[in-house]
């Protein structure tokens, strides 16, 4: 069977209009690298955007890039890297975690909205999406935002598109903010801390004036094998707490020294430099300790977002109560939890604990059967859930786009 090649926004409009007319829900994909995420969908046709892959405009001095949604993320990253720039929110590459190949497309990056360690300092995908052209479930191409960083003209629909998992509109072209890459970086390493103490160390670091751009903790683990660059940190049996500083060389060195003094009560501090440091943070960004090919590859993986200062206690309790394994990012505000397989991925237990801590949890990796039986995305309270549904219907009243991906109830 031929793969339909939509060439431009007009083609996308036509496909969506045809889908509306024939009541044919569409699965929206770029490279399909995140198809395994979400509730199993009630779609029976695929709209593939990988042919919309042009870089429309890259203006390094304006700190913006405009690209079509199907452009490969890896290509765009290497393009902006050639001008020493980056997406400051450190988009996560989900391929190792999900056990698929390829980092996917720009559209997928925005739709998933999964930011890496620097989120605590630079914000998430939603903070870097300046403008978009998209086709709604009305079959109409619309634009929102613009091509400048400072803009309050009209509602900021970009915020909704980021992290909407393709359920509101089919993005065709986006304008993203790019930022200069730091000239150098340092990672301070503390060893042997329990989760709660590590959380306190990260809180102290993030509450310091030293502009910490990464704060992660890898507890000791009986399950995990050392993964990626993290292998260089020593045995996974030993807990490591990692704090990143970035900037010009003189500044990074100066702050590393100052932060080291702040952290002295938590133990001896080692300092890693530049390339070694960078490799560690990309391993954390991509959650390599829970990679599909690793020792915990068969375990379902949860992504928990919570108030950062309560992360250590929450994660420690979860690991104990579920017999699972956790790692922390965002100073404790992001917990990745791999849990021993159960039919419900231990959703009820985990969500009760997470709710009590004021957080929310998403089941990022699980078998289709488990995802069918569990709310993949965190259930919301009645009023917020109803409002979210009205918001979704304001974009896609016929439920054409990625039908049922976010809500189990709709997947009928």
């Amino acid at each position, binding site marked *: 069977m031929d793969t339909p090649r939509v060439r431009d926004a007009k083609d996308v409009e036509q496909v969506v209009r045809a889908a509306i007319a024939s009541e044919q829900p569409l699965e929206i994909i770029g490279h399909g690298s995140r198809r395994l995420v979400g509730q199993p969908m009630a779609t029976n046709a695929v709209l593939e955007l990988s042919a919309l892959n042009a870089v429309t405009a890259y203006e390094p001095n304006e700190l913006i890039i405009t690209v079509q949604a199907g452009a490969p993320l890896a290509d765009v990253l290497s393009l902006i890297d050639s001008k020493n720039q980056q997406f400051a929110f450190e988009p996560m590459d989900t391929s190792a975690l999900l056990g698929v190949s390829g980092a996917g497309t720009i559209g997928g990056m925005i739709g998933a909205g999964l930011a890496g360690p620097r989120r605590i300092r630079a914000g998430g995908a939603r903070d870097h999406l300046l403008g978009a052209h998209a086709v709604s479930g009305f079959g109409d191409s619309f634009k929102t935002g613009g091509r400048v960083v400072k803009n309050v003209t009209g509602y900021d629909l970009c915020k909704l598109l980021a992290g909407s998992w393709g359920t509101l509109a089919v993005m065709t072209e986006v304008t993203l903010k790019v930022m200069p890459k730091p000239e150098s970086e340092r990672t301070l390493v503390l060893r042997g801390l329990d989760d709660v103490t590590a959380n306190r160390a990260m809180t102290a670091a*993030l509450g310091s004036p030293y502009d910490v751009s990464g704060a992660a903790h890898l507890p000791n683990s009986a399950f995990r094998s050392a993964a990626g660059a993290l292998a260089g940190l020593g045995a996974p049996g030993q807990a490591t707490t990692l704090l990143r500083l970035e900037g010009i060389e003189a*500044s990074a060195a100066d702050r590393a020294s100052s932060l080291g003094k702040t952290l002295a009560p938590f133990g001896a501090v080692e300092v890693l430099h530049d390339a070694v440091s960078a490799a560690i943070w990309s391993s954390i960004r991509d959650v390599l300790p829970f990679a599909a090919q690793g020792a915990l590859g068969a375990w379902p993986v949860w992504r928990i977002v919570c108030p950062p200062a309560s992360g250590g206690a929450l994660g420690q309790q979860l690991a104990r109560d579920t017999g699972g394994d956790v790692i922390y990012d965002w100073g404790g505000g992001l917990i990745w939890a791999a849990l021993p397989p159960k039919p419900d991925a231990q959703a009820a237990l985990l969500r009760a604990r997470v709710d009590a801590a004021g957080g929310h949890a998403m089941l990022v990796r699980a078998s289709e059967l488990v995802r069918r039986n569990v709310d993949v995305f965190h259930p919301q309270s009645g009023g917020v859930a109803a409002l979210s549904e009205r918001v979704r219907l304001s974009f896609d009243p016929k439920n054409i786009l990625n039908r049922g991906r976010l809500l189990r109830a709709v997947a009928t």
Partner: protein
Amino acid sequence: MAILMPASDQAVLDRRDAIVAALRTIVPGEGVIDSAAEMIPYESDGLMAYRQPPMVVVLPDSTEQVSKVLKYCFEQGIKVVPRGSGTSLSGGALPLADGVLLGLGKFKRIREIDFDNRVVVTEPGVTNLAISQAVAHAGFYYAPDPSSQIACSIGGNVAENSGGVHCLKYGMTTNNVLGCEIVLMSGEILRIGGKSAENAGYDLMGIITGSEGLLGVITEITVRILQKPETARALMVGFAEVEAAGECVARIIGAGIIPGGMEMMDKPAIHAAEAFVHAGYPLDVEALLIIELDGPGVEVDELIGRVETIAKGCGSTTLQISTSEAERNLFWAGRKAAFPAVGRISPDYLCMDGTIPRGALPRALARIRDLSAKYDLRVANVFHAGDGNLHPLILYDANQPGEMERAEAFGADILRCCVELGGVLTGEHGVGIEKRDLMPEMFSEIDLNQQQRLKCAFDAQGLLNPGKVFPTLHRCAELGRVHVHGGRLAFPELPRF
């Protein structure tokens, strides 16, 4: 008034006494104001050319009261205009003759300071500056700093997605708020987000921020706070040509330097500011840049040197580097007083707020110069150069017949020019009523319909702050209709399974 507001509902006006009485049962005592004299302070916001007394002013002091007032108005079909401190420069809080003006001024309490999670939970009537002051003892501050920060409320900041001189590096309001309690027009109270970095589901906080009081009434906000940078120093650099100053801005950014603030003033603005505050600005330059670098001392010192080299390479004619906090503040004094300084040299002025790509600055200033000649009105330009946000101040005299209309037409042409150059109608002041009728310059009907559909998801009857932002109002039922185009499958080869 050149801007048409929605027609008043005579049936509502006829019931005014009963409505006031009903509101008094919800908000007792002085919380309901209905005398013409006492309502005068609420007739206008920061866009003072437009005035309209509301039907009645209500000043609730609890979320429950807000909810009951909105529920009552919802059931009775009465329009509501929310208001914070009333500093909007785009008329976002302009009352309606048949509407309730809902003031949040009594929500003045900071509810929680949580240093471990680096957030402050506050009521919406607290001023922007008061948040920074409340956490200053621990070295923290709230980053967005609109120039009205002494007076403007954090609730208004969220409604308008306010910016400030430091948002190039630290972001606007939307990048610094985490959650809120919001009351919908129906009276329903919702909690969105909280102390976590992200909320679950769709980013409702992101859409509420900058919605200009059209989606709901915010009764509590959770904001991020940051540690104050260890030090800050500024350069004040003069150029004989605007183009050279623009080039300098581009090269600084191109060199990977993101200053804490980077402001530009043109000659008329420099002269007005210098006459007012005597900051020592050079008077023989065409453009002045104030570039502030903040962070650890060692970093700031190094970057000051790099910026100095870039500025000289761009042909700067004067260059001073602050050596003390007093001197840095002096550099800023003129810029921060630019608006009142212009107020001294002209009976009235209009403050515009477009954004353009940084590189288009010389072209934009040339166009503004031409328009100034065409409309025969003086203009002074101050400019958040780092992020392309332009604030032309159009000088006029409202007592001269026709001059205000001419100034408004001049302003509209400037904003059209911003859009033509690849920019937008408003960078931080909001659309309100001021730029409402210019929205079609930037958005098609389809674009605007999608935004209004979203409005319908929050306020299906269009009772909350109608007449703002959108040039044409549509019924939600009409917007929600899906048009089936032909019913033919355009891509019959679409794979199916």
